[in-house]
């Protein structure tokens, strides 16, 4: 283990601590809560077990099908996310590569963004981002 790789060890430790903290909290509160309220928990009123809908009795299944709109948003999110990911290595080398070939490094990302912007304008025109329709 050396250099950068070593720096990921704390991340691993942090992940373990964070999970232990969250799980520990849940388990402790469950045990304490069950013990303190052991009398009350002997008989649970039927109404307590019903999904809470402001006092009305629930009708139908708990989760309905989603609107296809959410699928569209998630899919467009992936595409733009990939674009953002490509922007990071570009941003990091931009200043250095300006000295070598300014037109190339600016033009390459400008054309990348421009091509994607065509798709973006298409999405706007087809009202893909409109939630009212």
């Amino acid at each position, binding site marked *: *283990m*050396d*250099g*950068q*790789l070593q720096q*990921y060890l704390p991340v691993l430790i942090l992940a373990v601590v964070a999970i232990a903290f969250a799980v520990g909290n849940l388990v402790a509160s469950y045990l304490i809560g069950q013990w303190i309220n052991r009398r009350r928990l002997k008989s649970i009123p039927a109404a307590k077990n019903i999904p809470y809908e402001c006092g009305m009795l629930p009708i139908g299944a708990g*989760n*309905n*099908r*989603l609107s*296809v*709109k*959410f*699928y*569209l948003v*998630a*899919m*467009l*999110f*992936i*595409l733009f*996310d*990939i*674009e953002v*990911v*490509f922007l*990071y*290595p*570009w941003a*990091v*080398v931009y200043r*250095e*590569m300006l000295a070598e070939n300014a037109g*190339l*490094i600016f033009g*390459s990302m400008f*054309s*990348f963004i421009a*091509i*994607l912007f*065509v*798709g*973006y304008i*298409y*999405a706007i025109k*087809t009202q*893909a981002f409109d939630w009212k329709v």
Partner: protein
Amino acid sequence: METTLFYIFAALTLLFGFLCVANPFSRNPVTSAMFLVLTMISISGLFILLQAFFLAAVQILVYAGAVMVLFLFVIMLLDLKEAEHTHVRKVALVTGLVSVMGLGVMLVLSIAGSGIVEAPAKRAIGDTKLLGQLLFSKYLLPFEIVSVLLLVAMIGVILLSRKEAK
């Protein structure tokens, strides 16, 4: 230390991958998706051990954080009931097996074809700067083609999810 961690992450990747496709305890599609998330995360652990830090971060950002959210949305969009897909159709089984075998052959051939190369100089591989320099000089054309690919995907998804014209 590194070797031990490699074996741990490799075993976890395989285990989570197995639980994703053939979980003996649950046939809930959401459970499968969550195990796929765990598979992605352990793969990014493997990337870190290969010192491919940028790839590891992107693996989590794009696959675990974006693609899998889409999967969850699709599962909830289709609203698969746990019992609905317990029977496997024969056609699906045959095509599935054929494509798995095809992929396997491709994998073996490409590994055999590449030969075992010497590990590149460490610390040179995962650096975001080096990746950027390569991407914007040697691999500039593929990079630009990616933008066209993304454009096609964008238009495709909008067309697919659009309501039929009245």
